[in-house]
């Protein structure tokens, strides 16, 4: 099952990473990472724990700002992004591993990323639209003023997706979004993201190979901060070029770790 094309606006945005290196407390976390995200569809970043996958996402949206190299979004360097890192992060949505909802209602959470005036003036239609895209409107449409914390974990994660979508991001980055969820919630989230991937490019971090096989169109295999292989999903899973990739697919460990 791959990205499901939907009717509606399809955004076409490009993300390119050139020689990105990150050193934290003397440890090389990322080492000259280079990759290009296709204009739509799902690129999956796989690799063992500690490979630098989550760190890479935090560098791309400048949550972490002390890296070297170049990251371009639509050919614009993120280091010189108009409006700075805050504006960039509204452009590059990020969904974390665990759903994080803020104290307050479902409505307040959906609108959380907006400014004060926008929070007051956003029409219900728009809230319905983003909750619908996140596959949550049917479940919560009647109870938007209930506490967000009363939702199940899976629903909270979809609420986080809706909250990111409210900002109309160009690219969505998801960091192991199903790692804290049960299988049925995991399936719903996967389907939601697959539908979204028909609209915008998605960079999906996972160490779950089965999930990567289900969702990926493009695979970037990261090990110990290095990009070992970048290939279309079908090619990567059936005929990986690198020895390390073959080892990882077979044993779920990266040869660089041994």
């Amino acid at each position, binding site marked *: 099952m791959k990205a499901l094309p939907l009717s509606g606006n399809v955004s076409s945005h490009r993300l390119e990473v050139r020689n990105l290196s990150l050193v934290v407390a003397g440890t090389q976390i990322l080492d000259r990472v280079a990759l290009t995200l296709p204009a739509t569809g799902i690129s999956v970043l796989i690799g063992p724990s500690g490979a630098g996958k989550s760190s890479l996402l935090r560098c791309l949206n400048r949550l972490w700002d002390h890296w070297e190299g170049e990251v371009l979004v639509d050919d614009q360097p993120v280091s010189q992004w108009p409006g700075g890192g*805050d504006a960039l992060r509204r452009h590059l949505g990020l969904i974390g591993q665990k759903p*994080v909802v803020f104290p307050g209602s479902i409505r307040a959470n959906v609108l959380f990323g907006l400014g004060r005036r926008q929070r007051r003036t956003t029409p219900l239609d728009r809230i319905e639209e983003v909750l619908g895209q996140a596959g949550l409107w049917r479940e919560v449409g009647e109870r938007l003023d209930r506490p967000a914390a009363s939702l199940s974990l899976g629903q909270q994660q979809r609420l986080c997706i809706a909250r990111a979508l409210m900002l109309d991001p160009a690219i969505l980055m998801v960091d192991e979004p199903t790692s804290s969820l049960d299988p049925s919630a995991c399936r719903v989230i996967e389907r939601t993201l697959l539908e979204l991937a028909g609209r915008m490019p998605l960079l999906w971090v996972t160490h779950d190979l089965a999930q990567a096989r289900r969702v990926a169109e493009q695979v970037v295999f990261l090990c110990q901060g290095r990009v070992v292989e970048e290939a279309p999903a079908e090619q990567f899973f059936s005929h990986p070029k690198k020895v390390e990739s073959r080892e990882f697919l077979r044993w779920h460990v990266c040869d660089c770790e041994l």
Partner: protein
Amino acid sequence: MRGLVIVLAMPALVLPPALLGVILVRGWPGMGQIDALLGQLSGSLLLAGIGCSLATPIALGLAVWLRLQERQAMPWLRLLQLLQGVPPLVFGLCGMMLLVQGLHWGMSLMAGGIVLAVVVLPQMSMNYLAALERVPREWTEAARSLGLDDPAVVLRVWLPGAWQGLLTGLLLGLARSLAETAPVLFTAAVFSGVVWPTSLWSPVTTLQTHIFYLAQEGIDERAMDSAWTAAAVLVTLVLIFSLSALWIRLRSLR
């Protein structure tokens, strides 16, 4: 080994409650004439209120700044810890030289309030910082991922998420202000002659200094009874603030 630990811990467990009991038992009979202490009571509360009102915005600003600085804040944290260790008497002397004598304010509510603010500032800053640090990091990261800038993160995530801890810090600051004697003795308090201060530049009578003055008259039984009553009132006030802080803290951990 366990028995030895219990024996060693006994004084710490028994002595404070025992002393508290003695103060309350000795002071209780005089509670009927508490109206005679209303001037001192209001003076202590006014000074603590002014001190904490002045200290709170600065302490909160400092705590937010330190929280934003993260690791680079370490030297400033050390400085605050150092300031916490400075005897309040020293601040009292400085206040007397600078405000009472230097600026010719005389013994006044304002001078006492400012010195108390300086005394409680390090403790309040550390308590506020601890409250801000208890706000889950995931909240901060999620808010930043949505493009919120620093002021928005502070106003919309940290302060609402830490309000119970901040209130606890304020109550502990009030309790500490009420317990301070030396800074007040040098800058704001007189023994008698004032019931209700007419302005911020008036001197006040306070419970702390009242006990101090009366205790110097140790031979006079009536003076000592009055001192015990003042001590019981003061201890009760400190207990109210401290136990309220504890209650809020326990509630926030649920």
